[in-house]
């Protein structure tokens, strides 16, 4: 099947985002209950995301005084679109990539850069102070995520001598990048969690802002936003699995199953960290990002480059 033609592409990307997001919600719930020592009912853990989504669909949206209504509606759509665009560059199996372009890594990075616009738009358009503060926070931190993300992805592309994600997966035959470039995956996950404003890097929608950019949204609008940010996390996990964990490569199981397992593994790590690591302090994170994370990412690039020569 030609996965790059519109209908199959739409179906495939939507299905992966839906399954991945549901898995993330289940993992998040299971981790939360485990940390809180709450009795974990597997049935509840599996059904609760669907129940919560149904409730949001039945709840009426609300409005603030004079919001920028078009931008408010656009923000979750833009965020979801960027996540979908980013996911489209990821090979989901041997020969199954929706956007199998020569510079897929660049396209992925570009989509992730626009996440900043969507989050700020969401904070701005509610015409309310706390969401706006959430938007400011994301803007303040966005470059601290995007720089390490771009650098570690470039480092991963060096052994493949190609910016195509498919070529990067192929280049890991025999040795995955997680071992060849041990700095890559941890830095990538930190940056990815920031772009999905997840767990310790959820500063824009944080409890100290009573929910930040999402303070004022209700019902389906809230559901759309919550889904969209999880789409970003899923896209980041899928790309992480492809670029650092060998993608679809692995014995016995079909390629798509390996890809699913590796993506799930990264989603489980993200869900775990979300309940175990306290939210970062903005200023300190920026300092650490520019004095530690970005230099480490540069070391990753230089060492990978030297080894690739």
């Amino acid at each position, binding site marked *: 099947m030609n996965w790059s033609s519109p209908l199959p592409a739409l179906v495939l990307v939507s299905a992966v985002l839906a399954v991945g997001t549901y898995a993330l919600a289940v993992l998040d719930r299971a*981790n*939360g*209950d*485990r*940390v*809180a*020592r*709450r*009795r974990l009912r597997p049935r509840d853990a599996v*059904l*609760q995301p*669907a*129940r*919560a989504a*149904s*409730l949001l*669909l*039945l*709840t*009426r*949206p*609300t409005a603030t*005084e*004079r919001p*920028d209504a078009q931008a408010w509606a656009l923000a979750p759509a833009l965020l979801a679109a960027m996540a979908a665009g980013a996911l489209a560059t990821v090979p989901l199996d041997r020969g199954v990539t929706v956007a199998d372009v020569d510079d897929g890594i660049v396209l992925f990075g570009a989509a992730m850069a626009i996440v900043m616009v969507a989050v700020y738009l969401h904070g701005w358009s509610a015409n309310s*102070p706390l969401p706006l*503060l959430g938007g*400011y*926070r994301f803007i303040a931190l966005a470059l601290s995520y995007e720089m390490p993300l771009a650098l570690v992805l470039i480092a991963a592309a060096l052994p493949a001598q190609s910016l195509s994600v498919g070529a990067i997966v192929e280049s890991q035959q025999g040795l995955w990048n997680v071992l060849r470039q041990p700095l890559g995956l941890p830095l990538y996950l930190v940056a990815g969690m920031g772009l999905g404003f997840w*767990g*310790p890097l*959820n*500063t824009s929608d*944080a*409890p*100290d*802002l*009573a*929910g930040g950019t*999402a*303070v*004022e*949204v*209700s*019902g389906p609008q*809230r559901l759309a936003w919550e889904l969209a940010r999880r789409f970003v996390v899923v896209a980041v996990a899928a790309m992480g699995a492809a670029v650092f964990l060998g993608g679809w490569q692995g014995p016995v199981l079909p390629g798509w199953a390996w890809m699913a397992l590796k993506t799930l593994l990264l989603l489980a790590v993200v869900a775990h960290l979300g*309940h*175990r*690591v*306290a*939210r*970062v*302090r*903005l*200023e*300190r994170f920026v300092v650490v990002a520019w004095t530690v994370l970005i230099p480490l990412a540069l070391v990753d690039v230089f060492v990978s480059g030297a080894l690739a020569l």
Partner: protein
Amino acid sequence: MGIARWLTPLAAGADVPVFTAIGAGGRALADEAALLPGVRLVDSPRAANILLFVGAVTPPLLRPLLGIHDQLPTPRATVWWPGRAVGGGLASALPDLVVGPAGDGDHLRSVFAELLSGERRSEPPALPDQEAAEWRGVGPFGQGGTGMTGGVPYGRPLPSRAPDPDGLELDQLPLHVGPLFPPFPPGLILHIELQGDVVRQATVGDNPFAGATEDLDQDGPPLDTALFVGALTSPTPIGDLEVARARHHLRWAARTLRLHGLESEGLRLLGLARSLAPADRAAVESLAQRIARSRSLAWTTRGVGILGTDDVTGGPVARAAGLAVDARLHDPAYQGLGFSPVVHGAGDARDRLRQRLAEAVQALELAERAGSQLRRPGPPLEGPRGPLGTEDPLPSVALLGLLPRLLAGQEWGDAMTIVASLDLDLEEAAVGQPAPIPA
């Protein structure tokens, strides 16, 4: 309609999204709500279908409470756990108000189920749906227009210009936060001048519990520190006092963890606090040590809101700053229990967290050692926030006075960390304060 019929049974099984608003004497009970199975506390009223009001309504709380009520999306219902006092105008403002048995999760879930099934009508707005002030903007998004910039034109706060520390002229937005803002202690109102997310100036607003405390003592639910207040006048087992102290500190720590994004860890602490006994010391100690050693929490709280030994005189905040003061040192009842105060030195938000966790563990040790030994009234008593029964103002009064200086120049996140770290109790601060004269 068809889709709604299909979704309703599924939605009925969802965790009930509850926004808690806390009135006089309601904080401990609100903490319990977080532990109810099938209930999920949310940070914003927009994310809730049930507004849970816990405690007594004082007149200044009524209008903000109704404002929050109207922010809930429909279908919505309000449940009130009033303690002992039912009044304050809430019942007349919300005709569909459900006065529930306090702490009853089944009842809360049944109200939610009735709401979804349509057996219970969704509450209409309590306030008129009109703008607080006439809007005089003219642009496509209502912006611009004569006098629509700077200060509070026509009752509407808008940014003005003010210099920042770098000498730049930046927008400064006046913001009034509280008295039911979730990250704040109940009743706290702050008038904040914001530049970006930096608090340039903060002043404490009128205490909504002022003038109400005496009535509440007679008629309302108990204050957060009721056992300690009672121990000033009647013999009380030391074991009970120390377990109550440990419970108080653990609940505070749970709220602090939630603020820092560690809600699940906080729930675990709340679960321990609910049925706390001296025998739980080992479990509390192990958890407290893990939290106190958390590098991520240290990273978030170290160096934030530093108080020196000259700034404070008593309580855990002073001991976190390195001052070895504690009324128990001079209390005959504690002689022979081997008590010596735990002290830290940095005086920042991190040490205040470590201090209270260490004091919770120590309190359980003391409770174990004290057995059924009684403390007789007479000398000052060390309450969970500082000494009680002295000539000095109550601990929260002094702590509240520190806020404007501590918050000036802080980023929003640090400001919230500081407010939480002081463990303020506006009811305690209101003791003896007259009610404000209505405008």
